[in-house]
């Protein structure tokens, strides 16, 4: 590291990021148990700003960086960046250490969960349960900063395929958060498996505009796709986001408050510092319906009149840092779920999101889900539709929010791409939201 620091210190702005990602998945399905380590990616990244552009070299071989021809790049950055001195370290504790639990017991744990879930329904034709553990260790060094973080994350995820009378449906669920084996104790599956079985009887919903309630999971994917992507500041200069025209303006009902926070306690996408050395803190994106802030990486911040936030994230250090979300969620409101349901004469409750797609420039949105539960006369009727898709214009949806429930739930299972690549760990969530949605 010292030799590389010497090489880079001729630049006005430079940093080094060392990273190690390790982990494992134990996957139990009907006929197999696999123990699969995560792809270990270890290496060193040197990053400088040279004559107005960022130049980065990343390698698993330190000598490659040390011997790289850095001298051919302009040592002047072209930007004035005032950095505070900082020296921090974060080690997230595992109450029950993953690797201190013998592999035999980890396998027994996953076997036990598999059998418990499988016993919930005779219509499960195929069931896969995975115990996952990932650990990120990073060290960041610049002229003014010395940072280190060691973040373990554990999860348990299942997917079940149901079969009956020639019909097949699937459902999935799980839990993932920072920490060790203790995270798996929060797994809930009974309601989900019951709903999975009911999907076999589901029909397609009559397409149209409905009064709808988004479950916290569905609110989460909405938060992520609606204004999460749209406020990623590296899109601003490129003219790829309509949000630049709306900063400081009303984009949602005044009941709507939206955050992105990499400092959310124990959430699966939290950290001490981002992949460009920015210390984590929460960003309020929408304040009582007004779009107030954006999410920035270093380059996005340098080229836009916005504050710098800790959203410079990479798939791993062999990838570029972009403005990316972390834990994105709607703030809780004051309504009770029961009141929200009873306020709907004819509508739907949207559940189990599977996919979403952003459109920061056009503000279109697509949210796909496994189920919509029918609400009639202020009650859930028990009828279920599957699959479902919500599409529309983001501000129309957000402005139609008329009730917000009083408890936030975060779903820890998410991953997110930038366009069609650059996958990073994210979470999202929120309370139940009542709104008007176009559902098909």
């Amino acid at each position, binding site marked *: 590291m010292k030799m590389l620091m010497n090489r880079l210190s001729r630049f006005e702005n430079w940093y080094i990021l060392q990273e190690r990602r390790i982990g494992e998945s134990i996957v139990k399905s009907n006929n197999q*148990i696999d123990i699969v380590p995560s792809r270990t990616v270890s290496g060193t990244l040197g990053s400088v700003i040279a004559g107005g552009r960022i130049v980065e070299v990343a390698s698993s071989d330190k000598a490659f960086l040390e011997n790289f021809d850095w001298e051919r790049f302009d040592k002047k950055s072209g930007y004035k960046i005032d950095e505070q001195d900082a020296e921090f370290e974060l080690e997230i504790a595992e109450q029950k250490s993953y690797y201190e639990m013998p592999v035999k017991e980890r396998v027994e744990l996953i076997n036990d969960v598999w059998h418990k879930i499988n016993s919930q329904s005779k219509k499960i034709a195929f069931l896969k349960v995975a115990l996952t553990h990932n650990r990120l260790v990073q060290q960041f060094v610049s002229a003014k900063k010395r940072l280190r973080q060691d973040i373990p994350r554990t999860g348990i995820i299942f997917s079940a395929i149901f079969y009956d009378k020639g019909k097949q449906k699937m459902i999935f669920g799980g839990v993932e958060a920072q920490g060790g084996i203790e995270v798996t104790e929060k797994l809930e599956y009974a309601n989900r498996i019951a709903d999975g079985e009911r999907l076999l009887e589901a029909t397609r919903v009559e397409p149209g505009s409905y009064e709808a309630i988004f479950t916290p999971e569905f609110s989460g994917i909405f938060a992520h796709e609606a204004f999460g992507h749209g406020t990623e500041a590296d899109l601003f200069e490129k003219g790829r986001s309509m949000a630049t025209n709306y900063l400081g303006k009303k984009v949602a009902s005044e009941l709507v408050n939206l955050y992105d926070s990499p400092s959310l306690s124990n959430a699966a996408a939290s950290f001490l510092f981002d992949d460009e050395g920015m210390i984590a803190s929460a960003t309020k994106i929408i304040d009582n319906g007004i779009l107030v802030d954006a999410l920035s990486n270093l380059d996005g911040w340098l080229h836009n009149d916005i504050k710098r936030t800790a959203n410079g994230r990479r798939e791993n250090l062999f990838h570029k840092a972009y403005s990316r979300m972390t834990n994105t969620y709607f703030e809780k409101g004051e309504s009770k779920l029961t009141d929200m349901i009873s306020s709907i004469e004819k509508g739907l409750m949207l559940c189990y999101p599977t996919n979403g797609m952003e459109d920061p420039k056009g503000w279109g949105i697509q949210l796909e889900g496994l189920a919509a539960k029918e609400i009639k006369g202020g009650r859930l009727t028990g009828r279920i539709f599957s699959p479902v898709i919500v599409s529309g214009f983001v501000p129309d949806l957000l402005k139609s929010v008329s009730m917000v429930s009083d408890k936030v739930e975060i779903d820890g299972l998410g991953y997110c791409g930038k366009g069609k690549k650059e996958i990073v760990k994210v979470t999202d969530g929120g309370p139940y939201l009542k709104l008007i949605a176009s559902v098909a």
Partner: protein
Amino acid sequence: MKKRIIEAISDISQWQLTKKSVSRIERYISAGRVEQQRYVNYTIFEGLLLKNENDKTHQANFYVSADDDPVAVVKEATNNLEYSSSPRWSLPERCLYKTVKLLDSEALRYESLEKMSLDTRKTLERFGNCLKYASGEFFSSVVSVEIENSLGLNASKKYSNFSAYINIVNEKGRSSDIELVIKKPFLEDMHMDLVLPDYAVFAIESADAASPPEGTFDVLFMGEALDTLFDYFVANAGGKSAFEKWSNFKLEQPVVETDNLTIHSVPLEKGFVKTSPFDENGLALKNYIIIENGIFKRIAASKRYADFLSIEPIGDIRCIKVEPGKQSLGSLYSGRFLQLLRFSTFEPNPITGEFSSEIRTGYFVDNGKSYPIRGGTITGKISECFKNAEFSSDITKRSNYIGPKGVRVSGIKVS
């Protein structure tokens, strides 16, 4: 490192070691300036250990990176062996490989990135102020793979990749951001000047695009929409779905009620991103017919799943060739239908075949007149809408697809 790993695993009855080295250069253009340039280089060793006992196989994987102690990593993997289990399978034995051209000498030259970048700018300049060249990301990589196993198998390849991610923005009317992704193994196939103009036209026309009419329509899939149109067939034809018993296909049975669907697995076809003479276990790959005239002919399985199913291993499907039809693309433009080219995502559920997708670029065609559309959702089920599928005789070649330039299917709900 390799020698140390092989010494550590030599006591295991079956092992495979893969050395993968990646070199990549990257150039990022943002609003007309060079935002960033990157140089990436890494090597990783991937190991696989197998121990067969009676009708079961115990399996463990491991990864060794530069700073790892290979002996410790292998020891941990060896300890894991007894806790994993699957039906019995073995690694492939030594085999002969077909020769396919995979490497372009232009790869890893920064000038090649500058050329792609320049071609992009020049092509878009032809459209004047109608459009903004928002961003471009240009990559060139060379990947070297060496596989050897305890049964004497020895496979190696070196392949190149070029990719471009280009975003075009239209600020007029209903503003839009259109992303074009091109991935090819050879620089000479990165035809920015031929592909980009279509996307520029989409961006311009999307300013006046209306929502699609509601109802049930025939849909002509073209362009990007073809990239995932056949994913349901690929997933259901694979060894994994057969073994896990969720495949809807049975050998020698129709996969859909149509006799004009023929799909080949073509791993040896030159010019695809996934073209390869062997798979991840070093199994030699060949081109095969998977579905012929609507009948399921062959399960495409890796060695592992083929052994589970007691069938011949031919490898997973990497690239597909769909047989063209007898009618020209022009003759598929009849009556009222939607011509769809891009979706937010189009990913039919592999288990049910159901899909719901938001339209990003398309046209409503009514008796020869074409109106740009955008937004709205199509819903349907692959097995239903392919019943009367029609395939154009004109063909197109995409990243991992060669086949009809247009595929017209019916009974798709639009809302």
